């Protein structure tokens, strides 16, 4: 039952755990901003780029933008789905019962 003790240990020190998490996030951002090289050098290819292709080029140039993508994407999924659900899709559990 060491696993239970470990979880208890972490729960008792929730603030410290959270602080470590924030530090990890900060380090990740610093690393992404200054040290990560784009996969393909920007400006590759000669054909005119569409909007999404340009957006992708920007993401390749600035990898840190994926953090914003993740955060906003998650918020979008939560709120759009809940709005969709509450627009009449979610209903009582015995809906199909007779």
């Amino acid at each position, binding site marked *: 039952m060491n696993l239970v003790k470990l979880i208890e240990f972490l729960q008792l020190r929730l603030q410290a755990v959270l602080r470590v998490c924030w530090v990890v996030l900060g380090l*990740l951002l610093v690393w992404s901003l200054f040290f990560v090289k784009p996969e393909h050098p920007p400006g590759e290819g000669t054909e005119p780029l569409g909007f999404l292709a340009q957006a992708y080029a920007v993401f390749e140039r600035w990898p840190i933008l994926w953090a914003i*993508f993740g955060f906003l994407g998650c*918020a979008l999924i939560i709120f759009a789905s809940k709005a969709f659900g509450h627009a009449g899709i979610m209903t009582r559990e015995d809906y199909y019962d007779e």
Partner: protein
Amino acid sequence: MNNFWLHPSLILLAGALLLPLVPAALKKGYLILVPSLLFVRILFMLTNPGEFGHVNFLDWELRFGRVDPLSSVFGVIMGLMCLIGTLYGLHVKENAQHAASWVYVGGSIGAIYAGDFITLFLFWELMAFSSVFLVWFRRRPESLAAGYRYLLVHVAGGLALLAGMVLNYKATGSWAFDHLAVGHPTAAIYLIMIGFILNAAVPPFHGWLPDAYGAATFNGSVFMCAFTTKTAVYALCRGLAGMEILVPLGVIMALYGVVYAVLENDSRRLLAYHIISQVGYMVAAAGLGTQMAINGACAHAFAHILYKGLLFMGCGSVLYMTGESKFTELGGLWRKMPWTFVFTLIGGLSISAFPLFSGFVSKSMIVAAGFEEKKYWVGFLLMLASVGTFLHTGLKVPYFIWFGKNRPRKETLDRAAEPPWNMMAAMAVAAFFCIFIGCCPSALYKLLPYQKEAMEYVPYNGYHLSETLQILLFTAVCFFIFVKKLEPEAKISLDLDWFYRMGGRAFRWLAVHPIQAADTFVGELYRLAGLAPLMITSRVAALFDNEVIDGAVDGVASAVRGVGRRLRLAQRGQVQENLAFAFAVAAVLLIVFVFFVHKS
């Protein structure tokens, strides 16, 4: 041995048939032995590719064993999953449950190695008709109904496939199941596609999946989540790779599953919606059809079978031990089921494509194939879907079952405990492979159909790691900020199965109301217009019968009796007297005849 080629499905089918004869003491050993033999057989076939098992049937040649890299990669993972799934349900006493799962897996493996459409169809239907028992064996009224719906939908899909393959045979003169001419799709190819994508649960043909997988037995779902959809992915990669329409369908699927997973309150139905989402990646990859995309689809199917099996085993353990699978009835189980939590978390991190877990090395291949093909919208939308995947399977499932603010009922908490050793062992094996593939991707890449592409692909580079970690960790930040918004609600979500569930009800209403009313009307009309005159007629007839006919008959009878009585007096048994009478009567008749009849 040259002419004899042992079909791997035969091992399972024979194993299932012999299962009831195995003495109880040897049962567990036998249950492990048969899938182990299957797995060894498939690994052996890996080293010996080619075409085997040709059988002449009518005018056609059936090809039961096409062993090439594409079929082998699916064969290996299905053999492995059969072993893990059987281990998970090892303690189940009922032979029929094991037999149904083995026949189901046998059908799936038979379809994978089939070289022609007739063989494919045979095994395709075997899958549908055996897997439905995994739903029915839960023996709840809901499961019975869900099983029937599952079967009806799959029969409809099977018919589309059958119609398509017959039309295709008419057009090409061949039953061979090879890559079809997807550049100029005909009605035949669209029908075959409908048959395949129904099994892959592509919207709008996906309603059967959450319906059946949420209603199946705790270990039935573990089997079902691995085989039906992935056999369909194989069929798409084999026959319809590069079919344009599959790309948007796959992307829609990937997001559709995510949206419904937000709303879902039942953990196993949530996982079922995430199958739809994950299979969406594979369908889109099959549609892209490049070598990298097909590699990605195979790799992702391989990884998916393991981590989705693991997730269903985790939630199945909770269901098995507590009897609950709804988030609103669960919470705070970490003290009681900590290892189940760890295994489920490993499954969740794998499906979310966390670095060092299996999803990372397979999913990124598909997304990269989308970007490389300059289909940027595919890449971005699949990225968005992977945000949703981590949100639900990586965060929501573990959080609301093992932590969370919901307080389950006291009986649920009392019942909760770690499941039996075999269930734990099966989860441990699956978890091991999830991490092993994530850490040693080359072991998986060696199995992929396009070796050169696979060996060139490098999943672990700075950009990929930074991109994935940022997306996942900031999704986690967003989750904990909006966790209140995600609190489960004790509701169900209407999906497209509404149309046939309510359609069935409309049919029954039609039967009960208009058709019944018409029947009653005709009955009433008959009573008034037909029956009443008939009764009157019969009353008159009875009167006539009593008074006239009976009177006449009675009269005749009494006259005959009177005459008879007289005759009896005259009749004394003397021959001469009788003869004299007879002659007299004859003479009288003769005279009457001569005088009255002849004259006139």
